[in-house]
């Protein structure tokens, strides 16, 4: 009897306190197993190195997975469940970042880098403008050449 009273008096923080009442339909049986795995695979195990809650064998991940299962069974949507964990752990816990900037930034950086490299290469291959080539030396234009040609008796053309 005392144990029953004690159990009834125990209270743990509930998702409703954070994300309101369930917005979906309760999930059960085989679908519950499948959905639990799907939602848990979107959550990062906080005590592991880059593992999802679905894949981690740690006790923390097992507890989190159990909580996902319980919330799905009560009718909480995937969005509500992810939000619940995000409120406690921050965006760190989400394996799929919410902001698209995370995906776009590396592409922008790559494009900017490529443009800079191309401009630099073009600049290096162009180089400074070379001075105009001097006109070819002919006996008409240079008396010294004419005199040398006369001395050697060569072609005067």
């Amino acid at each position, binding site marked *: 009897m005392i144990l029953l009273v*004690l159990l009834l008096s125990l209270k*743990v923080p509930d998702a409703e306190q954070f994300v309101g009442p369930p917005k979906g339909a309760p999930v059960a049986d085989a679908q519950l197993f499948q959905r639990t795995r799907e939602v848990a695979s979107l959550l990062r195990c*906080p*005590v592991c190195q880059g593992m999802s809650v679905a894949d981690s064998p740690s006790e*923390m991940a097992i507890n989190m997975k159990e909580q996902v299962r319980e919330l799905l069974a009560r009718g909480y949507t995937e969005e509500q469940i992810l939000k619940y964990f995000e409120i*406690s*752990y921050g965006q760190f816990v989400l394996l799929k970042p919410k902001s698209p900037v995370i995906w776009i930034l590396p592409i922008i950086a790559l494009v900017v880098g490529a443009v800079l490299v191309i*401009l630099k290469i073009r600049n290096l291959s162009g180089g400074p403008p070379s001075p105009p080539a001097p006109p070819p030396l002919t006996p008409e234009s240079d008396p010294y050449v004419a005199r040398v040609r006369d001395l050697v008796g060569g072609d005067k053309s």
Partner: protein
Amino acid sequence: MNRTVLFVGVIIAAALVVILFVGLGKDPSAIHSPLIDKPAPEFSLREVGTNKTVDLTQYRGKPLIINFWATWCGPCWEEHPSLVASARQLQPDVQFLGVVFQDKEEKILGFLNQRGTAYPTVVDEKGKTAIAYGVGGVPESYFLDAKGTIRAKFVGPMNGDIIQENLQKVLRQ
């Protein structure tokens, strides 16, 4: 053209230096929690070794330090004497509460009987309270003000100075 490339390079390098400088200056134990400045998740848990229920709301009115720990955690052993000493020194003006999860009752009792304690310890059976607080590992401590709002979080073993430093954040509010 060279000046443009140099200018962009300097901007990128300066940004990197700033990011590294800010990052290096940060305390790695001071993990930001989204729950800071938010009401602490409420719970009523069973005190270890008794059939008494400890409700978070009964601690309203004075600052409270909630320490998540476990007997299998080495750093928890390390910080335990500091927590007990601080509790003996600061109570009743500051309250202390231990929350144990992923552990066995007899081990917790054995630990507390052997090493002593100065404040209640409750059991978080399925770790739901730890999850609601965003606990990633143990030990982790949360500093609540008199109204039950989380004002600071510390990850890792604490000593007296760390406890005082984080309490200041609570008292500053």
